[in-house]
């Protein structure tokens, strides 16, 4: 077998360089190809296939985030004023800057490792990461989603000196499940993608013994060709096990599954468009049993101090793992030692393979044998494949033949910086007066049966959300006997076995915010909304507003000028909101180029930002649920209710466009969330107003205990009142006896509120508006509609 090919780039024209990049699925721009050519010109030779592939992987959008880290000159027109903003590195000066500026004392490791790490208590910290696995899930929904969750679990295992995964999250965006038109060849129907993705996450998470506790599902035909699959994982790690260390003379060990051709070009493929002629190798297949086996061994080895650094073989495989871990020293790797699934792999294929369930561990020579023996005891494959050097070079061999030699400095710092000059004009939110001709009954039925509002119980029940025995507040609360449930705003975990740490009162709240319907109209409003939604969700279940940490996941379509400017504006808005909320970003990941090439036409997804929030609950007594508790108690709206319907489920159901979008008042929101923390004792239940508006939030609160409410209103725009989806708005149930005291506190603290009405025994929502009976909504009937859509 010929061990490598040399690629002639020294004599290549720009045209030829472009051809080499395209033909080899390298996804490198002409500027990047020229930089590679210059590097090899300096060292006086052409690159090998292994070297070119290593550079392409290291410089991929997936690994280097080269769009978000670009330089930018942005002309931003807002309120008839033009601001020119210049950035040397957009990501550093927006998202990272917010975290730096907030300087939260509990942020222990942010944007450095495989996941963000924040303090939980004196001894333990929490690691949280959310990844996307969009392209693989579009091509093979089951395998793509399974390896998505498998990959993010490995990020947690490979974070610090390994964290123990304690919970998973999953957020999906699909096309309409009932889509009737013909789809192009090679594109799966949304229902098939939906079933495959849910099954993939289920099978991997459940088999690993990790509960899936929180998520969200969005249906919109903008995701018909490019579904979005976000997978998250939370881990717990001792505070003294956060720091990795790598030094020359140590050995590199590969742990876990064997290497095959699966997933080759995964890192570079994630930067490319989807079309109908892709090779089999871009798809990975998951093997949770192998991952579970090495997870147990690695945690044991960590506690025995048998290694000093660890990372997962994710996108880019060994190339990425070894290159990243040893970038400050250098390494030598011997590919013939890598255990293979089958013969015939070329050296560059072994080096770049993205075969799943593999970790790279670095240990001292004198601890190597103990580590290998521990793995053997547990039937986990582990092989020494190389050593750490002090040459600052990445050297790769196959049977004594050097197939790759690259300077670490060039590999990690040689990527030419991108520069964009863009302009953006903030939208003036329209205030179109709409007269809704449909009857209220008809609209209610439409909204409750909308896939974006209806119960997601079928999906939630696929997952084990209780395994490990730490889930205190589950996604659904209610009666198993009556088979009726209320959805909760966020999940709550006690990250230890209660018996072991009975003095620990703290818990974790996990929530998220996502709203592509706003992304289609106005990315500024979307960004504000999703940060607020994620924060509001965890505050509602009892998280301390001052201890909430965020993760950002930007999923964007084709990066034309318009979309690019929207992406950077979203970063800028995210920075502003996070700084004001004092909620630092601790980790993030972007997935760009989510578009499909159909007859040379690019079909992009709507700009979509997912914000995940992890909050600390100081005392488990503070945990609040969303369902109503007692007859005669009072229901209040806390916050300024809006009547604007832009981006709402109602506007989508009735296909009304150009509506004004409710705006977030950040100062007020901060006041509200602090108020909710401080006066936690008053609340019997709390629920945020989100998809479907006030009427849906109220109904969801009524379901679990089969109660009802009677509302006495005085509003002019009843549709706006019932269906607007304003940020910073929460429904609260207050004890009958506390009414006067609570209202005094509200007035004293200057919190806008509205007393909606009282809880009653009969399961219905009765609305009187201006002393006239407007609605008598039978909640048993509504529950049938709401719970019967996804099966």
């Amino acid at each position, binding site marked *: 077998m010929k061990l490598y090919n040399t690629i002639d780039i020294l004599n290549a024209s720009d045209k030829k360089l472009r051809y080499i990049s395209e033909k080899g699925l390298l996804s490198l721009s002409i500027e990047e190809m020229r930089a590679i050519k210059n590097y090899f010109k300096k060292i006086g030779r052409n690159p090998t296939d292994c070297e070119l592939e290593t550079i392409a992987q290291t410089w991929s959008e997936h690994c280097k985030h080269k769009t978000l880290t670009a330089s930018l000159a942005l002309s931003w027109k807002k309120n008839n004023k033009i601001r020119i903003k210049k950035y040397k590195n957009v990501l550093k000066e927006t998202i990272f800057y917010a975290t730096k500026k907030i300087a939260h004392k509990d942020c222990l490791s942010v944007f450095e490792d495989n996941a963000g790490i924040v303090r939980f208590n004196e001894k333990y910290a929490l690691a949280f990461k959310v990844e996307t696995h969009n392209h693989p899930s579009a*091509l*093979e929904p089951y*395998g793509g989603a399974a390896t998505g969750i498998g990959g993010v679990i490995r990020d947690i295992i490979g974070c610090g000196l390994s964290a123990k995964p304690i919970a998973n999250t999953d957020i999906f965006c699909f096309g309409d499940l009932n889509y009737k038109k013909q789809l192009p060849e090679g594109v799966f*129907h949304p229902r*098939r993608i939906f079933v495959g993705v849910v099954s993939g996450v289920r099978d991997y998470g459940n088999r690993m013994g990790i509960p899936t506790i929180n998520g969200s599902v969005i249906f919109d035909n903008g995701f018909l060709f490019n579904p979005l699959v976000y997978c998250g994982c939370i881990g717990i790690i001792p505070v003294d096990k956060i720091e990795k260390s790598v030094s020359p003379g140590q050995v590199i060990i590969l742990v876990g599954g064997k290497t*095959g*051709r*699966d997933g080759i070009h995964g890192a570079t493929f994630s930067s490319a468009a989807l079309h109908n002629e*892709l090779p*089999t*190798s871009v*798809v*990975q*297949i*998951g*093997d949770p*049993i192998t991952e579970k086996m090495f997870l147990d061994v690695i945690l044991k080895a960590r506690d025995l101090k048998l290694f000093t650094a660890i990372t997962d073989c994710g996108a880019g495989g060994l190339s990425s793992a070894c290159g990243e871990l040893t970038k400050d020293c250098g390494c030598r790797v011997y590919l013939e030692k890598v255990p293979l*699934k089958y013969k015939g792999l070329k050296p560059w294929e072994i080096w770049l393979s993205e*075969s*799943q369930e593999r970790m790279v561990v670095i240990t001292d020579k004198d601890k190597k044998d103990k580590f290998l023996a521990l793995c053997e005891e547990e039937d986990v494959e582990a092989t020494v494949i190389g050593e750490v050097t002090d040459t600052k070079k990445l050297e790769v061999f196959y049977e004594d033949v050097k197939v790759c030699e690259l300077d670490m400095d060039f590999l990690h710092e040689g990527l030419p910086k991108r520069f964009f000059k863009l302009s953006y004009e903030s939208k003036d939110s329209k205030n179109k007066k709409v007269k809704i001709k449909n009857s209220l009954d008809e609209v209610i039925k439409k909204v409750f049966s909308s896939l974006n509002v209806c119960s997601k119980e079928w999906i939630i029940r696929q997952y084990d959300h209780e395994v490990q025995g730490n889930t205190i507040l589950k996604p659904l609360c209610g009666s198993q006997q009556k088979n009726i449930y209320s959805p909760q705003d966020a999940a709550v975990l006690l990250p230890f076995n209660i018996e072991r740490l009975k003095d620990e009162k703290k818990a974790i709240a996990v929530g998220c915010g996502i709203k592509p319907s706003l992304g289609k109209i106005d990315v500024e409003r979307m960004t504000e909304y999703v940060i607020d939604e994620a924060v509001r969700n965890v505050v509602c279940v009892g998280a301390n507003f001052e201890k909430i940490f965020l993760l950002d996941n930007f999923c964007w379509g084709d990066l034309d000028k318009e979309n690019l400017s929207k992406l950077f504006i979203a970063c800028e808005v995210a920075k502003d909101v996070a700084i004001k909320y004092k909620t630092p970003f601790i980790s993030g990941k972007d997935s760009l180029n989510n578009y499909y090439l159909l007859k040379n036409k690019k079909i992009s997804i709507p700009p979509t930002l997912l914000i995940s929030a992890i909050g600390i609950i100081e005392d488990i007594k503070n945990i609040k649920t969303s369902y109503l508790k007692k007859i005669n108690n009072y229901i209040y709206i806390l916050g300024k209710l809006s009547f604007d319907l832009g981006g709402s489920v109602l506007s989508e159901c009735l296909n009304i466009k150009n509506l004004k979008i409710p705006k977030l008042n950040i100062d007020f929101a901060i006041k509200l969330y602090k108020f909710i923390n401080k006066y936690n004792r008053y609340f019997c239940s709390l629920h945020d107003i989100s998809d479907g508006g006030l009427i849906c939030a109220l109904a969801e609160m009524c379901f679990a205990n089969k109660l009802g409410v009677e509302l006495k209103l005085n509003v002019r725009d009843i549709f706006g009142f019932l269906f607007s989806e304003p940020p910073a708005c929460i429904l609260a149930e207050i004890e009958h006896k506390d009414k006067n005291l609570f209202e005094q506190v509200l007035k004293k603290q200057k919190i806008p509120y509205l007393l909606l009405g009282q809880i009653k025994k009969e399961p219905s929502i009765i609305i009187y508006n201006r002393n006239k009976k407007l609605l008598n909504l039978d909640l048993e009937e509504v529950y049938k509609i709401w719970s019967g859509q996804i099966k």
Partner: protein
Amino acid sequence: MKYIIEIIPLKSENESLIKELNLSGLKNIKRVIKNKIYSISGDIDKNKIDFIAKELLVDPIVENYKILTKIKKNPSQTIVNIWYKPEVLDVVSLYVKKGIKYLGLEEELEIHSGTQIWITPKVEEKKIKSIIEKNFMNPLIQQYEII
């Protein structure tokens, strides 16, 4: 010797599968059965294969099994076997291999896991291709044979 082991669920998903096929434009389908199948090749006798099937492959509470050396054509049915492409990781077969070793059998065996679809009445071969690709397999990672 090559054996095909069919794992037959006692309660099949008949109705939902017929509905799926109806939606794909195949009307008048009376019965659809989806089985797991394994192909095991190597120097091994049928008694040992029976032992493997009983101890490892079948859940006797909800499944039954059949061992065949050749799948016979049936004029009233279409039978389709779906397998992973050779370059794709077949995780199930890996663990079956491991499981066989744990059962104490030392034979070197080649194992593949797959899915078998029985459709009654027989469907024209032209039509079946798109139906199978749309509903039961992913041509990017799997291949199929019509019996």
